[in-house]
């Protein structure tokens, strides 16, 4: 029992210590009881049987099922992260443009994709091109469609066959992730640039730089330091969201754990789920740790005028919300 006082309670006296000890015992008993009930249920349903757990100590299971799944997860996450960052910079700066005809469409795109669930976007990318491409192929845009797919989208494995487009699950997951996370990152970029004090831009203009120079040489370098933690914690969200590929049968880690392994090893879904969860938690915790470290570093050595956008606090508000005077916790979406 720690004796030091925190904000909420004093260093406990004799009576409080006795009460805390009782509470400790009671809560430990309750938590253990829940755990024991679960263990008993496990045992009752034969879930501790060795054959359900032993696959995870076999190298072949790791080599042929789990690691390829992990590879696919990381591949989708890496491609989507790079493209989402590009999308975010283009649309984030687009929203800051002085020209209304750039600012308004960029804002509309960002707000639209942030308001739609990611899974629906993945469905849009997976099912819809296949359904509508035959009728486009018959119209005057048929050639344009074929050229676009052959010259660009084929990079992601998209195929076109006699006018019908087939989007592989990998491409659908990546495109969905890019549209959604790119829009969130666009808001992060905008918030980052806006957080730089006005004097910086004014000073840059006064020494004769143009808009391009002010943004490229003065604002962006400072803004990137400010928004780095928010970007990295958005990458955790992106990595977690690759698991949605499970629903359209993309062969990623969750698919390996929840479909392939149980199908081969006595339907051991719980066991596989636990092992897969540990892998996800380890990766995500490492990335989150990195974000927290970046945030701490950004707060310690101040080479930028803006306030560091935190991992949860200070990230842009959800769609529909415009709180100008930010309240204590910011309006951050807490990387959910």
């Amino acid at each position, binding site marked *: 029992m720690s004796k030091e006082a925190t904000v*909420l309670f004093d260093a406990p006296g004799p009576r409080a210590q006795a009460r805390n000890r009782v509470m400790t015992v009671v809560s430990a008993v309750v938590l253990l009881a829940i755990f024991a009930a679960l263990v008993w249920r496990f045992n009752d349903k034969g879930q501790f049987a060795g054959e359900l757990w032993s696959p995870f100590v076999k190298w072949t299971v790791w080599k042929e099922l789990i690691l390829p799944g992990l590879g696919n997860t990381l591949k989708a996450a890496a491609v989507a992260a790079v493209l989402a960052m590009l999308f975010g910079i283009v649309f984030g700066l687009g929203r800051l443009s002085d020209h209304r005809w750039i600012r308004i469409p960029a804002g509309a795109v960002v707000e639209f994709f942030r308001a739609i669930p990611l899974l*629906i976007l993945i469905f849009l990318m997976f099912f819809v091109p296949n359904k509508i491409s035959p009728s486009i192929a018959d119209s005057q845009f048929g050639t344009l469609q074929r050229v676009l797919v052959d010259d660009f989208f084929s990079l992601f494995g998209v195929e076109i066959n006699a006018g019908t487009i087939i989007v592989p699950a990998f491409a659908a997951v990546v495109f969905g992730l890019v549209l959604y996370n790119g829009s969130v990152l666009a808001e992060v970029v905008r918030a980052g640039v806006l957080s730089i004090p006005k004097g910086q831009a004014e000073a840059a203009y006064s020494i004769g730089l143009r808009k391009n120079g002010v943004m490229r040489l003065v604002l962006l370098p400072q803004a990137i330091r400010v928004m780095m933690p928010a970007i990295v914690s958005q990458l955790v969200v992106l990595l977690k969201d690759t698991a949605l590929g499970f629903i359209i049968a993309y062969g990623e880690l969750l698919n390996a754990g929840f479909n392939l392994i149980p199908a081969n090893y006595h339907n051991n879904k719980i066991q596989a789920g636990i092992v897969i969860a540990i892998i996800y938690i380890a990766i995500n915790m490492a990335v989150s740790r990195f974000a927290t470290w970046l945030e701490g570093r950004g707060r310690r050595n101040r080479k930028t005028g803006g306030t560091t956008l935190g991992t949860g606090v200070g990230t842009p508000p959800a769609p*529909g919300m415009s709180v100008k005077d930010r309240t204590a916790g910011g309006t951050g979406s807490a990387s959910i």
Partner: protein
Amino acid sequence: MFDFSAFFDHFDEILQGFWATIRLAAASAVLSLIIGTLLASFRVSPVPVLRSFGTGYVNIVRNTPLTLVLLLCAQGLNDTLHLTFSSNSSTTYYWWAVLGLSGYTGAFVCETLRSGINTVPLGQAEAARSIGLTFTQSLRMIILPQAFRSVIAPMGSILIAMIKNTTVAAAASYAEVALVSKTLLDAPTFTGGAIPLFIGVAVGFMILILPTGFFFGWLAKRMAVAR
């Protein structure tokens, strides 16, 4: 390409899907708020067992994909361990989806609330202690009311993210709007209705999300603690 008749043929199913989404979101909103508040009070409590349980829970759940959480609930706890809520399978899947979604969202509510607790000035807690309030009393009457008021806007963001996350329940055999759309889109004959369906679903989610956002933005301004 824009065959709205194919879309309106299935309009009833889609509306039912949205109704299922709303039912899931409403129940999860209430439950996740309860779970989150409970976890936050665990994490600041003087009892070390509860503190470490709260920390462990938040760290584990926050770093697990929601799809995996819901799959473990529906296919692990329900189908394999047969921990069911009722003999009717759709009711059971509904409650497991609610429980999984609110267990996941609760971790985020907890973290937000904790950041709200940090904004309550030290003097408030000291004053509460000096008039003899116990930990539970000062948390309930002094700290939490002020903490809640300062985190209304981030709570709104979490609620909105939760409404969007209801679609993931499609993986957990719960027939909400994403699963309804997937079933429709899986049919090879449903070609012209694809874009109208997407527009309909997008508009539906905007109808759910944008007013929620405006409401919480308004509420946050109204309830802001003047310091």
